[in-house]
Each structure stands twice: as structure tokens, then as C-alpha cells.
């Protein structure tokens, strides 16, 4: 009962703020809305019994990545997004079409499941997540991803570095 109230509250907040990200004219507000979305998603992860993922969601997305986004928006002092009207209309059409497609897919998937929740395959506690990530099954993928990110980092530094 309490779970349901919290869940629907968070879900409504996530959806409303996600709509806000798209609808806002001011990019700073869009960024703030996105932060609210990420935080409510984190709440939902917590509700699903995985506090670790919930906290990571905030630390990584809401905490680190969004700060960088905001930083850039603030540094460039973007006030309003300005698209030429025709291009804007085209983009809106494409976005609407893609959204519709996603909604269709979700309806099909949910209908096929018959509304029963998908049973979780893995335990979600912190040691369980760690054991999965560092077991041979995912270890190579996990480490390869970190090397990719490191490579991207080095690349970004090399590109940004001024010629002496």
C-alpha cells in the first residue's frame, strides 16, 4: 500500500519532469528537470530493493554528469534555444513519431507479459552486484568498458590541449 503510493508518486514526478526536459524553452530549466527525473528514478530503484543502484544513479548521473551539463550551459550563457521555425517543426515531428513508436513497443511488451511483473533474475544487494561484475562472466566486459572510457578521457584531453 505504502509502496504503491510512493511508487506512483515517484513515477508521476519522473514522467512530469521528463516532459519538462523537452517542453522547457530555457536549457537551464531543462537540465534542472532532468536532475529531478534522475532523482525520482533513483527513488524507484531504491523501492525495487536495490539501494546500491539507487545511490549510484545519483552519484554518477545526477551528481557528476549533470553538473558538467549545467556547467557548460552556464558558461556558454545559453538563454533560449533558437531553432529556425521550419527545422523546429521537422524535429518536433520526428521526436513525436519516435515517442509514438516507443509507446507502441511498450504497450506490446506489457500486453505480452499480461501485466505480471518481470521476476528479477539477480539479487540486487551490493555484494551481489559486485560478485556479478567481478565474476568471469562480466569481468572482461566491465574492464573493457572502463578502458574505453579511459581512452575517451585521454582523447578529450588530447583534443582540448592547446598547441604549445
Amino acid at each position, binding site marked *: 500500500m505504502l509502496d504503491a503510493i510512493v511508487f506512483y508518486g515517484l513515477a508521476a514526478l519522473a514522467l512530469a519532469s521528463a516532459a519538462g526536459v523537452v517542453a522547457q524553452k530555457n536549457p537551464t530549466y531543462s537540465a534542472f528537470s532532468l536532475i529531478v527525473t534522475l532523482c525520482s528514478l533513483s527513488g524507484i530503484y531504491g523501492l525495487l530493493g536495490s539501494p546500491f543502484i539507487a545511490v549510484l544513479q545519483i552519484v554518477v548521473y545526477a551528481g*557528476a554528469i549533470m*553538473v558538467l551539463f549545467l556547467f557548460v550551459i552556464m*558558461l556558454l550563457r545559453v538563454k533560449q534555444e533558437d531553432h529556425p521555425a521550419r527545422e523546429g517543426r521537422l524535429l518536433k515531428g520526428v521526436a513525436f513519431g519516435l515517442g509514438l513508436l516507443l509507446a507502441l513497443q511498450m504497450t506490446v511488451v506489457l500486453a505480452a507479459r499480461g501485466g505480471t511483473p518481470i521476476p528479477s533474475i539477480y539479487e540486487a544487494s551490493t555484494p551481489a552486484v559486485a560478485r556479478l561484475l567481478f565474476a568471469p562472466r562480466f569481468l572482461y566486459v566491465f574492464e573493457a568498458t572502463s578502458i574505453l572510457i579511459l581512452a575517451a578521457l585521454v582523447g578529450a584531453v588530447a583534443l582540448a590541449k592547446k598547441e604549445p
Partner: protein
Amino acid sequence: MTPALQELFIAVVKILVIFSVLLGLFSLMTYLERRVLAFMQFRLGPNRTGPWGILQPVADGIKLFFKEEVMPEGADRIAFVGAPIVAIVTAFTAIAVIPYGPPFRLPSLGFLPEWLRGREVSLQIADLSVGILFIFAVTALGVYAIVMAGWAANNKFSLIGGLRSSAQMFSYELALGLSWVGVIMLAGSFKVADIVNAQAGGFWMWNLVWQFPAFVVYLIAGTAEVSRIPFDLPEGETELVAGFHTEYSSMKFALIQMAEYVNMITVGVLVTHLFLGGWHSGVPGLPPSFVWFAAKVGFMLFFFVWLRGTLPRFRYDQLMHFGWKVLIPVATLNIVLTAALVTWAHR
């Protein structure tokens, strides 16, 4: 009462008590900071309101209440009002997972209802399995208050203050998080209470000894995180008026100020719990108690004031260099060494 209601009742009482204690501690700190700083500089500090000036925070509070609320004309209303709220909410939420002492048994007093007599109560609002990470996440969100405040005021000093602040916070947050990793590895748990209990036995068991590099890194990064001297560039008054909160007045200013002090108390509490053995006395034979915890936190708060009375301010580029090129490598090296040590000890 049903057990669920009883739990709820206890939780609400705990929240109320901790909230009011923190508010009290905040006003006490504003007084003590001015007073101690004054003594360090051979001045007297506020000493006119009440005995020894102890009522100064009350006077300050009344003054701020009745001050005129000013909002700059070009300010962004929502973000301007939202920033102090975000600041205070994140500051207080971080406190929720911190324990204040070993579990405590209520005495069997006659006036207590049956279900409360002799009941064991943990001195903590929420005991999350990811406690320390939760604190990290919530304090990371605290940056937004500063970014919002700096951006919303439509004032160049505020904006520069906000930008400096966010740059400083996310450079030092990394070192701060890394300095916790060694401690977490030694305790084998994210729970604050487990980390404290892993340091039981005597002061040579404290992480101050076993994680000394991490202790130094955390002390520095923590001071930077709460933007206190020598890391108070975001509000460096000689350059930026008052940084991100230049345009704030009245109660909004008080809220921002309160959030800063609560964050400082949080850092003091965390240093105590992570490195100074929390509520353990450090001397074999003396039982763990809230008293040791309070004494250590008190010392840490004094330490922050002491720093403020002693050190000059960093220059901005020095600050960034120091964070990225000294603190983070030291913290990383510490993690590698600790990991090797833990693996070797488990073998």
C-alpha cells in the same frame, strides 16, 4: 499500537530530536565561531547580548527575520527561491544515515508506555545498507544549490562564485570519495555503524593510524567541500563580494548560512566516524558512548574555526592543481596499498 505505528512514532521522535539538536548546534556554532575567532585575534567578539554574548544567535535570528527581502530585478524567480531550499534539504538529508552512538536501551520508567520500556533504540534515523554512499550522493546534490543560486541572481559576482564553487566541488568530491574507499575496504561495509565498530579496541585501531593518507586527503577535501578557509574562493569577499550568495538577504541568506554550517557539522561527524573511532573511547576499558563521539565532533568543529583563524586563502589555480595533481593521486595510491594489504591479510 501496532508495531508499524510504534516504529513510525520512534522514527518521528528521532527526526524531531536530531533536527532540533542540529538547529541548536548551528546557532551555537555561529556564536562560537565568532567568539573563538575573536579570541584568536585578541578581540572579544560578540559579548553584549546575554551572559558572555550567548544570546547573539537569537539576536541575529530576529534581525534576519525582520530584514527586507530583496530579489534582484533580472533574477530567475524559481531558481532563486529554489536554491536555499535545495541547500537546506540536502544538508539535512545527509545527516539521516549517521548514527550518534551505540544502540541505547530505554529505562523502564513508569510513565513510559509498555512497548517503550526497556526497548533498544538505535541512535540513527535510517540504517541504510549503503549508508556512506548515500551521504556521498546527497552531498553531491548539494552542489546544485550553489549552481542555482549563482546562476539565478543575474549578477556577475554570483555567477563567477557559482562556477568556481561547482568546479571546486567536483574536483574535490573525487578525492573525497576516493579517500573513503580505503576505510570502506577495511570495514568491509558501507554502513557507518560497521565502519565505526571496525575501529573498536583502542586508538591504535583507528583509521587515523591505518588510513593516515586517506585521513589527510579527506580532511583537506572535506574542508574544500564545505568551502571554508583556506578553500573559500567561491565566496572570497575581497574578489567576489560574497560569491554565489551575494544577492541573498533576510531568511534566504539565513537558510544558505544554515546549510553551510550543517554541512560543516556533517564533515566533522564523518571525520569522527571514519577516522577517529566514532563513539569508541580509544582507551581499552572505557566503554563506547555518545560522550566520546560528541567530544570528538566538538574538537573537529573547533579545528575548522582554528583553520579559519590561521590560514590564508588559496589562489584559484593552485586549488585546482592541488586537487587534481596531489590529492587524487595520493588517494588512489592509498587505495592500491590498502587493497594489497586487505588481500594479503585475508589470505
